[in-house]
């Protein structure tokens, strides 16, 4: 049987290490792009100040980059250490984008990042700019492959269960590659990373302007961050990845949970702006609703309904009953692969095998499941509505606030009026944590909202864990928490120290 303590600890460890890793990834994505813009201006105008800007922000980029690399190593190996059954069950499909990420993206980023720092005197101006651009390209490509892998967990296309090997196997690589969820996710996530980079530059520059230091560099940095940030923050919201959410049942369930839509409404559905979802009573208190809006956002139409949680649970119940048949047929095939009747039965119900596996949490043999256990399994397909509802709203709220911030910054930059509006500089500085909060909440919505599935409709999360002792996982999770916390202190300390010194205070490259 599965040890639920190992499940909880492994989930917690994955969530902590992934969320921690993603504190550094978006800043790498965004800052590398901003470095390219600044250095391009240097190459085009030949003005030394743009080179010093590139080097100063590059220094901060490096401190952050180290943490991104360090915490990324954990992610690559954690599937094997803590999610061994998952790795065996879907490695045939899921491993490929991870390996290609190393081959096409991580190599590119990591090989050229050294030259970014050590190549200023060894390369021509254009040569160095190309190196910087390759670092930025590498980090964005890296995100592409990781999101292709992640999108397959949300919407597993191009794969089928093989009864000989007892695992999922690839049937169409192009379907995995061109997964609609992957495309929506990539644009949304990378643009969010660019926003993080832009807010970082904007906030620190505002701090310099407030203190009247490094004014020339800060003014220019703000202008770059304002224009790039405005474009990217608009992209994040307009190209939100909710469009990809209609692709599958679980994604529909995620939308229903985000909107706390307990019952299907006639199209176009109303949008719940505010309320208190009650997971126990299956209802939402104190709702404030805007007619039509949800139907428009979710289906981009006025005639398609958005399915409610009750209807989706009913569908899950049907699929669980079918999954029981699939599981029984598979057990028969395991003993006698030549059993034709079992094979026919399996073929009929194979798409619901994952729903049958959901029952393994409640009963050793799904065929013996009681109606109560089936009911519990059906309702287990509903993620935590209150958490999703609020995380999504805070994320969107921050997204909208950042658009306003960048629009104001853009207006002030165009009119060269930063110094006259100290209230804005203060607002910009205090916005520093906002994009990180939004990015982390975005992952909570995407991944916590994927529960109870590791692979939507295919493999329940609890089943994916390794057969390791709970004590080992407890040891590793404690180790990671302690070690990562210590590194966080050092990282923030170094960043703050370098920022306080500022480009003028650093003797590094001033001639």
């Amino acid at each position, binding site marked *: 049987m599965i040890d639920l303590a190992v499940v909880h600890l492994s989930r917690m460890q994955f969530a902590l290490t992934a969320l921690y890793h993603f504190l550094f990834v978006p800043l790498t994505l965004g800052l590398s792009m901003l470095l390219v813009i600044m250095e391009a201006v240097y190459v085009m105008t030949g003005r030394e100040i743009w080179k010093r800007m590139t080097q100063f922000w590059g220094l901060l980029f490096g401190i952050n980059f180290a943490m991104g690399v360090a915490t990324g190593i954990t992610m690559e190996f954690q599937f094997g250490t803590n999610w061994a*059954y998952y790795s065996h069950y879907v490695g045939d499909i899921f491993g490929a984008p991870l*390996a290609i990420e190393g081959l096409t993206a991580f190599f590119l980023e990591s090989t050229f990042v050294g030259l970014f720092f050590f190549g200023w005197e060894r390369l021509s101006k254009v040569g160095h700019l190309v190196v910087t651009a390759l670092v930025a390209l590498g980090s964005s490509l890296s995100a592409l492959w990781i999101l292709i892998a992640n999108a397959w967990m949300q919407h597993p296309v191009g794969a089928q269960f093989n009864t000989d090997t007892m695992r999922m196997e690839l049937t169409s690589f192009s379907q995995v590659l061109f997964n609609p969820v992957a495309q929506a996710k990539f644009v949304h996530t990378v643009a969010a990373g660019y926003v993080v980079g832009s807010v970082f530059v904007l906030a620190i520059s505002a701090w310099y302007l407030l203190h009247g230091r490094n004014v020339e560099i800060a003014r220019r940095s703000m202008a770059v961050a304002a224009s790039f940030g405005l474009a990217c923050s608009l992209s994040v919201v307009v190209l939100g990845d909710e469009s990809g959410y209609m692709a599958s049942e679980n994604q529909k369930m995620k939308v229903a949970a985000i909107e706390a839509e307990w019952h299907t409404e006639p199209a176009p559905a109303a949008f719940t702006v505010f309320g208190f979802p009650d997971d126990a009573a299956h209802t939402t208190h104190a709702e404030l609703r805007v007619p039509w809006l949800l139907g428009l956002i979710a289906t981009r139409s006025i005639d398609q309904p958005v399915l409610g949680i009750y209807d989706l649970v009913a569908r899950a119940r049907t699929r669980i009953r079918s999954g029981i048949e699939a599981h029984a047929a598979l057990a028969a095939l395991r003993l006698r692969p030549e059993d034709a009747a079992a094979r026919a039965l399996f073929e009929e119900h194979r798409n619901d095998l994952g729903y049958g596996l959901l029952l393994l949490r409640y009963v050793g043999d799904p065929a013996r499941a009681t109606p109560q256990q089936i009911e519990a399994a059906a309702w287990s397909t509903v993620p935590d509505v209150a958490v999703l509802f609020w995380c999504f709203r805070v994320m969107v709220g921050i997204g909208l606030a950042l658009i306003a911030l960048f629009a104001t910054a853009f207006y002030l930059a165009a009119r060269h009026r930063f110094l006259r509006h100290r209230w804005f500089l203060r607002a910009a500085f205090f916005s520093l944590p906002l994009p990180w909060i939004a990015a982390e909440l975005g992952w909570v919505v995407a991944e916590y909202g994927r529960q109870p599935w590791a692979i939507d409709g295919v493999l329940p999360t609890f089943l994916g864990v390794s057969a390791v002792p709970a004590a080992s996982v407890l040891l590793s999770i404690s*180790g990671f928490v302690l070690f990562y916390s210590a*590194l966080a202190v050092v990282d923030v300390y170094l960043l703050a120290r370098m920022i306080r010194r500022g480009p003028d205070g650093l003797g590094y490259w001033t001639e």
Partner: protein
Amino acid sequence: MPDYATLRLIWWLILGALLIGFALMDGFDLGVGASFRFVGRTDEERRALLEAIEPVWDGNQVWFILGGGAVFAAWPLLYAASFSGLYLAMFLLLIALILRPVGFFYRNKIEAARWRSLWDWALTLGGAVPALLFGVAFGNLFLGLPFHFDELRRPVYTGGFFGLLHPFALLAGLVSLAMLVMHGSVYAALKVGEPMARRAAAVGGWAAAVFVAAFVVAGIWVTNGIGGHRIDGVTDTLGPSNPLLKHVTVVAGAWLDNFRSHELLWLAPGIAVLAAALTWALLRAGRAGLAFLASGATLASTILTAGIALFPFLMPSSSHPDQGLTIWDASSSARTLAIMLIAVLVFLPIVLAYTAWVFRVLRGRITLESIRGHTGPY
């Protein structure tokens, strides 16, 4: 497209190539990491040694990351069984590897002696611990690991962390640590100015001697003392990946079966010993450039020796030998292997080309004079 058996064989070769690439590239910066505290005595000397690897360690490390990704994609059962089985050893390895990026980027940011000494220790551990653990892992492959599969085909590991510290595994760890310290020292002798180059050459000579001794003892041990695994009957090399269908007997000395049936393969361990001796001689003669080639040959032939001995096993099981993983019964589907092969054939040459270009741009010795002008761009 080649048939399933050929694809599996090609992927075994690719895995070997990635391991060799990792040892050749990341091996030298791990080796410098493990030894720079002793080769460099003042802060300036250490900075020069570190600057020899700072621009390239990150790209080098991707050989390791890619190795992990390739095992996931091509041998998912191996990825699942080995990493979950070696849970705490992997945790230790990850912590050691995490120390490196932060160490490199943070060390020079602050001048305080205690700060630098702290990161110097972190980088030393970050170099030595992985170098040692890789060998310990390989040693345990020769011994077999206690694991089997349950009814869901989940890998279940029944040993603990300390079970990995068998004397033979520790000896294998010494082989790999000595090998990578040798490689790193040769690189330092080639890349860094005096007096570090001279000291590095001396360390490299000692490491080469330790390597030869440990490698020979390990070879004798494998011949006489350790049970090798042998598949009974004919192997279905084209069948679906199911590790539960074969019978395996464990016989002392069976790890030499492949060498006995193909005598030409004895060249691999032969070259490993000779090339290490040559590395030692060339270092003494002050020919660091040639020594680097000899050291590289040592690494490649040592990994080949281990691979040939274990072939076709990837991860033998000591508790349930029949369920050990081989290249024929632990691979991905033929489709995935074929697609990944195309990806490797297209992209790996591009990687090699730009890596070569980067090393060319960074050519030249790092001397105490050359680092005095700046505080280091990292």
